[in-house]
């Protein structure tokens, strides 16, 4: 988007690419000389980007290639002798019911986190956008769960829910909500839902900040016009706020899903995937295969399969969930 004003036109002037994105119409194709001119013109930008691309190549492409290589070998302990086995390990993982059970738990984990974080984030962001003394203070306070390191979050909640010393368990027992003191992490039905709540508590400020930021970009005149037309709060939310922040929600949904799916630390620190594998999600499964079962190739193959699943999800998400304004 290039910013410039022409007589009688007060809005931002759109570049051909942006025009295509926002209207769906194809911009006139560039001639070869213009392309070269453009690349040449951006030479300095590419030069500045080069170190970053180099770093990305080293820290992303190399590990990815190494994971693919590992997945077609039969490595047990990392570093031990191995031989090429082709796609046999993939077949083994695909036939492992524990792998699919872990994927199912990850989907459950993901959906749970999405629902809770969306509700938390939206609620807090909308309250914050109303202004006032409390809203101003909340902008800072709401960041606290997010700035606490995951390890600390895990340990804090582990202790708050400890049956001997945990303040939450103590309160639940005192008010007879719980018959005898017991940690939820010892119960297979409760462990994963409680972990989802903890993770949502930890990460909802990120969603809150993004949604709050998006709400702030809604032009005041649109809101005022809707008010003049007699729109109530609910109608304003559905017809004004939600459509206008949908690009931000789209990006948050994509990034949040990919991040959320791969959460490992909180789960592993608190339950190590237990009890009885009740919280063994896909990342925990991969870790267990690599460093507890000492099946590095199986872990690599599972990682590749998860990568494929997430890639398919990302493609479908971009294809079908993209807001109309970004088409």
């Amino acid at each position, binding site marked *: 988007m290039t910013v410039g004003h022409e007589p009688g036109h007060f809005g931002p002037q759109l570049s051909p690419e942006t025009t295509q994105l926002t209207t769906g119409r194809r911009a006139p194709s560039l001639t070869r000389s213009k392309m070269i001119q453009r690349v040449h013109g951006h030479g300095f930008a590419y030069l500045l980007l*080069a170190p970053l691309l180099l770093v990305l190549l080293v820290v992303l492409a190399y590990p990815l290639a190494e994971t693919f290589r590992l997945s077609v070998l039969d490595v047990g*302990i990392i570093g031990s002798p191995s031989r090429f086995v082709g796609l046999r390990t993939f077949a083994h993982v695909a036939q492992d019911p524990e792998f699919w059970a872990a994927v199912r738990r990850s989907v459950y984990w993901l959906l749970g986190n999405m629902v809770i974080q969306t509700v938390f984030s939206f609620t807090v962001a909308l309250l914050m956008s109303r202004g006032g003394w409390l809203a101003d203070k909340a902008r800072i306070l709401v960041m606290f769960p997010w700035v606490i390191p995951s390890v600390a979050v895990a340990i804090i909640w582990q202790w708050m829910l400890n049956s001997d010393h945990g303040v939450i368990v103590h309160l639940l027992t005192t008010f007879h909500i719980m018959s005898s003191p*017991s940690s939820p992490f010892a119960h297979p039905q409760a462990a994963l839902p409680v972990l989802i709540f903890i993770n949502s508590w930890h990460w909802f400020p990120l969603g809150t900040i993004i949604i709050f930021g998006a709400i702030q970009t809604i032009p005041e005149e649109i809101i005022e016009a809707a008010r003049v037309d007699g729109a109530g709060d609910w109608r304003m939310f559905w017809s004004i706020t939600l459509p206008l922040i949908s690009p931000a929600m789209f990006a948050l949904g994509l990034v949040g899903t990919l991040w959320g799916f791969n959460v490992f630390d909180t789960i592993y620190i608190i339950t190590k*995937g237990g*009890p*009885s594998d009740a919280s063994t999600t896909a990342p925990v499964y991969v870790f267990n295969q690599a460093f*507890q*079962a000492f099946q590095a190739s199986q872990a690599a193959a599972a990682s590749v399969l998860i990568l494929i699943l997430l890639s398919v999800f990302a493609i479908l998400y971009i294809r079908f969930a993209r807001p109309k304004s970004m088409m």
Partner: protein
Amino acid sequence: MKVLKRWRILAPALISVLLLPACSGGGSASSGGASAGSVGGAPTQVVLWHMEQPPNRVKVFQGLIDAFNKAHSDVQVTQQVQDWNQIYAKIPAAIQSQTQPDILFAIPDFASYVNSTGAAQPVTALVKQLDSKHHFLAAAKDPYYRNDQYLAVPLYGFGQVLWYRKDLFAKAGIMTAPTTWDELQADAAKLTHGSQYGIALPAGKNLATDQTVYSLMTTNHAESIYSNDNTISFNNERTVQTFELYNKLLQYSPPDSANYGWSEPQAAFNNGTAAMAIEKGQYTSPFTKESGRPARDLGCARIPQPSGGQPGSIYYSNGAMILTKDQKKVAAAGEFLSYLLEPENYGTFLNAEPGLFLPLTQDGQTSSTFWSNPVVAQYKQCVQLMVSQSQYGKLFGFTNGQYQDSVGKISGQNLIAQSIQQMFVSHLAPANAVKWGSDVMQKAITR
């Protein structure tokens, strides 16, 4: 435009400045590992990795290291503390990048794991030399013996006993500690009332559960989980009996036992929530402070055994592996380990965690520096009991003269503990849980 031109000139220089240190930094940062050799007259650098994280242990180790470094100007030992939860992931990466430590503390199954990476250097000559001087206990050194070579120098041992709260026993009218499985069950039942539980047993997916269950298995002659043809023999009547006992005892253990590891039973024991626990010697040191009770209230006894059973406990030693091929470092590491096992230093070393680290050499067992420690002296009877466990203690995968390298796949995945979880959490019958465990163990070692 002028600004742009200036940037075009400055940018490559700026990038070079940013990138050059990164390119040249590789060789200088090796705080440890194989690359840190001696240069000229500089002392030989020896890096030690251990997983003894509590600050009191690190402090005592550092004191011994400082004293050693002072007495040996040609060697400089440094310790780096690692995490048991991460070491299985960290050590292969370190070995691959050739930044492994020169000395690595290990337990027998972890030593097998490290050995399979090809980085372990045999320490046979050193072990034999130290054995002739200090006389290692067989149970401490044998699990490190493979293919006519020792993989590690044994340093300290661990054994379990039954810990019980004498004050809670007295309140319940029980005068002596249980000695049989029947008495153990009866006492656990009698001591369970209100918010108090008879015994705190771990049933989480962790090593603590593996070890506690295995201690009870040894008392019932179920210590061998491998048969003579190296297949899994876990599924047998005696193991099932042990699981049945454990299942009954779990009824008298706090309801969140499925999430219990090492610390939770100890916390429950010290705050009076539980009257008994089966564990190693870490119960001695913090007892008075954490329980608010006098030391005399901490009782210890042999782990109860069934009718026709035998005295039993898990017993294993922590040993030091050498992972460097640099002969100068190998010699320096040997010198340091020999120094630790000298009786005048050994007692101090063991008392990094008094009551938990047990002597495993004959002269170490009579070391005055060991027995004079206030905690050890206060709980002398219990420490003696744990030391005596070495006579009949066992370790799964290392029984009947077998040294199973594949046991790491069983202990690494906590398959004994997982079998307990199948029984306690998923409500399988003990016999079915044992069968489940046997099947997954066989599958694990076959893959």
